[in-house]
């Protein structure tokens, strides 16, 4: 029946290594979770890489054993089957070992989770409300509020015009926040469930109609951070981005002043929550 074939072995190797190789070749476009710009986001990134490498290590051990068997224990090489089976020692070992690894992973994960959960003592609070299909931001401490809507022109979406650099992740009114301040975000929704996500802040939380969720963030680098709605919310779910602009406190204060005097094209919303 099936003979030892060199090309088959190569194909096997390829099938197993290809995913790994493509992983390293993927230096090209963004292919990994961003490290982010908050302490929490870097912890989350660390956790992500930790579990990833643990999985890779387990995978390498298990798949190499299998590959060895596939190459060496073939009938076509005249290999005779051993008839061993059932070994309580081995079974106990391969139940305990993963368990220990899991505990080792659970400890740092629990610590990060506890830190993420602590929304006490904020420096400022923003209430975010999801709408089909835009976000409404309400700076509770500054009495500023506005809607933030996708600003990519329809002509780009319908391919009548070249797409801009920030295609689909640009908005008319950005959420401007100060750096190095603990900001609590209150999430809710006006209609269906949405979810507010900015990868670089490692903040994602559902916006539920009739309920309020709390998360917090403290950004430590000025910059523009882009994200999207991540809960299917109807026809234009793909078209309600989130853009956060983190600035120095002084610049933030100036922005607040401008907002209050209604300048810079930032409209105060009709909703007036």
């Amino acid at each position, binding site marked *: 029946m099936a003979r030892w074939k060199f090309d088959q072995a190569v194909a096997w190797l390829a099938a197993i290594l290809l995913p790994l190789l493509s992983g390293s070749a993927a230096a090209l476009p963004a*292919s990994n979770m961003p490290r982010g710009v908050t302490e929490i986001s870097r912890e989350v990134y660390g956790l992500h890489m930790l579990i990833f490498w643990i999985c890779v290590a387990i995978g390498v051990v298990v798949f190499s054993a299998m590959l060895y068997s596939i190459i060496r224990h073939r009938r076509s090489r005249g290999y005779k089957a051993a008839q061993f089976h059932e070994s309580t020692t081995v079974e106990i070992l391969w139940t305990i070992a993963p368990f220990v690894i899991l505990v080792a992973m659970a400890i740092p994960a629990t610590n990060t989770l506890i830190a993420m959960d602590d929304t006490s003592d904020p420096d400022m609070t923003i209430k975010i409300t999801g709408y089909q299909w835009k976000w409404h931001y309400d700076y509770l401490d500054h009495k500023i509020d506005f809607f933030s809507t996708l600003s990519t022109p329809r002509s780009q979406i319908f391919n009548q015009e070249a797409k801009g650099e920030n295609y689909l992740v640009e908005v008319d009114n950005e959420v401007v926040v100060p750096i190095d301040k603990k900001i609590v975000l209150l999430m809710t929704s006006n209609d269906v469930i949405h979810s507010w996500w900015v990868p670089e802040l490692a903040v994602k939380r559902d916006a539920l109609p009739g309920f309020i969720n709390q998360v917090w963030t403290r950004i430590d680098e000025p910059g523009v951070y882009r994200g999207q709605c991540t809960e299917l919310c109807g026809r234009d779910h793909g078209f309600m981005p989130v853009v956060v602009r983190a600035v120095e406190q002084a610049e933030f204060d100036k922005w607040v002043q401008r907002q209050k005097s209604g300048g810079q094209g930032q409209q105060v919303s009709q909703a007036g929550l």
Partner: protein
Amino acid sequence: MSAVPHDDHHHEQHPYWIKRWLFTTNHKDIGTLYLWFAMIMFFVGGAMAMIIRTELFQPGLQFVDPQFFNSMTTLHALVMIFGVIMPAFTGLANWLVPMMVGAPDMALPRMNNWSFWILPFAFAMLLSTLFMEGGAPAGGWTMYPPLSLQTGAAFPFLIFSIHFLGLASIMGAINVIATILNMRAPGMSLMKMPLFVWTWLITAYLIIAVMPVLAGAVTMMLTDKFFGTSFFNAAGGGDPVLFQHIFWFFGHPEVYILILPSFGVISSIVPTFSRKPLFGYSSMVYATASIAFLSFIVWAHHMFTVGMPLGGLLFFMFATMLIAVPTGVKVFNWVATMWRGSLTFETPMLFAIAFIVLFSIGGFSGLMLAIVPADFQYQDTYFVVAHFHYVLVPGSVFAILAAVYYWLPKWTGHMYNESLGKWHFWLSAIFVNLTFFPMHFVGLAGMPRRIPDYALQFADYKMLISVGAFGFGLAQLLFLYIVVQTIRGGERATSQVWDGARGLEWTLPSPPPYHTFETAPVVK
């Protein structure tokens, strides 16, 4: 063991077409119907996937309206889960469980007929919504309110087709349980049953436990929409998150309903082509049972971002991580079975090996998803899409393909074309990775799932993924061809078929007579 096929000639006559297929109570005919139904729905659901991948080939909106795109993702999932994987497993159970436990037929043959024939009607109803005012359901297969309450005329049809699908699977499950518990041949104690039978027994209990929960959830939604209740409406004192809890209390065991029978299939195939008994039979049984138990206490890992208290998050994180232990036991067992075997690589074995490797990759990403702080980043992105496709496509689907290649010679009496089978395997294995592996990357880089258009940074991978998907889709046409060719003719299969195969079904001639084991075999 000895098989005494009862060849009283009038039993061999079966009525013609309509009468045979419509009124049949024969487990083999019903198994065949289920398998063909699954095959057809595989191409229907596949066509929807191709529409999705065509729209996603390039950034921008090219071919379909976003609303229709959402309908496609919704229906694609419902078709693949309820129309392909579940019926295919039920088809395998119909064909194999009686032959494996030494029974003449399923315990409840008339109900068996009914449970199959409900399916085509349920799906006709579901798919007819494509032509209704307001379009087909577009709120995702998870049907979260309030969004899914925005569905137009299709809404009640969606709910009722879910009811019918649930009904059909519950009846199928009752039948499997009744057959396994009552109709085993003398000497076939529970701990002697083939693992396929064991995994199906446990799956059947899961189905009976959770399908009514789904039915309850969608019925509550129905009354919310039409009869003024507010189960899920905060304005009326309800809670939209309640739906998610109920849905996933069904949904998580459901994903095990979609995978446990594959564990049974792989546990049959690997020993055969390793010519070596399964390494740890009883630990496989216990692992399956523990997975089933754990599946009831991990549901909220699908909704970590919904805003749960810390204690809840921690509980569901730990419970979910625990699932990796019995899952690991399974994988280690298969590898230990291959270890120092005398391996050959016929098509079923190739699919089984690919299953073990690629399913493990899905298990790894599952473990990553269980880590709550990291899941906040993964949730509802393409990383999750990659995860569940790894466990479902090179997982469940590969197991079904492996099963078909493995038992097709038994069912038809003909060997399939081995070199075409290998072609089918290699094309599937390569394209499946090309399709689903890069999804991990786009997900990590920040692409949400269920969107018809995306930012430019994802464009390269998206194109690659689409190419992979088209390739995978085309490769499955080859499978259809191989199956038809095998049914029509080919080298005659012996009753043993595979020299390393063990079990009652291999004591029967290939193809087995219409009625088998009318006198029960004795298992020592």
